[in-house]
């Protein structure tokens, strides 16, 4: 057979493969995602649970901005960590953890970030990022006012290699160190940023940055890498004023 003929056949197979993979992807994305499942957390948090801050960054190998465009060296976000006590069901069509929130008496911006935990790793080494390629995050903004009301908040010791306390009544699901903390364990800048996402649609696993004014809502956290996360930890941060009736109810479930 002539080389030209062989090459033609090979490139036809090449084109066929491209067509087939996109057909499979389109079919899969057309499937209906499961949106509900067993509840893993249902708890209400108060202003006293925000024990870190104020700050404009989230823990990582370097200071990552809390929100797109926020200067990490300024910003008045007070922070708490919530153990969602859940991870994706890998047999689901679109594996993820559903998070429902209900906010009350808050005037400002509430930011949500996610961290991933693997027991063998003994630390949090994966998170989402809110700027650049593959960014995802979730922000609720309503009636912004000057930051006030978080009397328990104290600055974090550092942005990496620190122990962070979760606000859950039941404590940390994996209390490796016996004190309801998780260890921030990021080895190098650039690593651990591509796997975890926050999305409003489970069929878009890579997520997006969402800004909303809704005091109640739903988003999903998931991972797309091949490191199977065993637990998700939510970082919740508020930049603004909170009233006496401030409360944040969080529910996690695994569709």
């Amino acid at each position, binding site marked *: *057979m002539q*080389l030209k003929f*062989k*090459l033609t056949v*090979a*490139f036809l*197979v*090449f084109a066929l*493969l*491209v067509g087939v*993979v*996109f057909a*499979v*992807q*389109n079919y*899969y*994305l057309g499937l209906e995602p499961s949106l509900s499942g067993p509840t893993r957390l249902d708890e209400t948090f108060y202003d006293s649970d925000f024990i870190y801050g104020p700050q404009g960054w989230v823990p990582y190998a370097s200071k990552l901005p809390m929100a797109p465009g926020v200067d990490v060296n300024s910003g008045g976000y007070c922070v708490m960590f919530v153990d969602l006590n859940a991870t*994706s069901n*890998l*047999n*689901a*069509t*679109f*594996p993820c953890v559903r998070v429902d929130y209900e906010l009350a008496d808050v005037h400002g911006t509430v930011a949500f970030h996610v961290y991933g935990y693997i027991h063998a790793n003994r630390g949090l080494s994966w998170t989402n990022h809110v700027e650049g*390629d*593959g960014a995802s995050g979730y922000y609720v903004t309503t009636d912004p006012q000057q930051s006030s009301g978080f009397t328990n908040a104290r600055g974090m010791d550092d942005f990496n290699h620190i122990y962070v306390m979760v606000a859950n009544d039941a404590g940390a699901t994996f209390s490796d160190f016996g004190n309801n903390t998780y260890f921030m364990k990021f080895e190098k800048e*650039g690593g651990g940023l*591509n796997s975890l996402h926050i999305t409003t649609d489970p*069929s878009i*696993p*890579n997520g997006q940055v969402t800004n909303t004014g809704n005091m109640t809502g739903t988003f999903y956290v*998931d*991972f*797309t*890498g*091949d*490191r*199977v996360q065993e637990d998700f930890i939510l970082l919740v941060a508020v930049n603004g004023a909170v009233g006496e009736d401030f409360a944040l109810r969080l529910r996690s479930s695994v569709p």
Partner: protein
Amino acid sequence: MTKPARSKYFLLSEVCFLSLMAALVYVLKTFLRTPMHLPGHNAIFWVIPFIIGLGLTRKFGSATYIGILSGLMIGTIGMNDEGILKVFEYIAMGFTMDVIALAFKNHLSNLLVGFILGAFGSFAKLLVNYNIAVLVNFNQNVILAGIGIAGTVHLVFGGAGGIIAALIVDRVRHVYYQRQLPTKKQELTPQK
């Protein structure tokens, strides 16, 4: 002047060379980090040692040998969750290239042939990767949700690596390469 016959078996010098290529695959896979957020784009690097090894030895099994050795290194001392199962991805990649190379035997320095070798080898790796994910329940559904992009990136970037490899093969294939000394019988047999 007679030319020594090419043994169908690997010579010691060829085994050494292919082993070096396998080590190069391991180094590229483990230590090279690029800022592109596309699954499989690193195929542009991995396929190069495979095709150079195959193109210079021109023997069936060269790429499979590189795949076995590099897969073992990546599976045992590389950093990945699949562990030793990783070896099957690289064997599949090498074997696919070996089989395709049979059809393009004397044209391995052709850029289009390099593209095809790299693209299909890289795609075979993706297919085995998906099957391993199904086997050990490693988020396989997420792979399917993005298989269009991932598959195309593997094909295109693998193909691009193949072109680079074919260019290299074309430039170095005439360089003196230590081969086994011909036997007396081979010396007397004129080669075509």
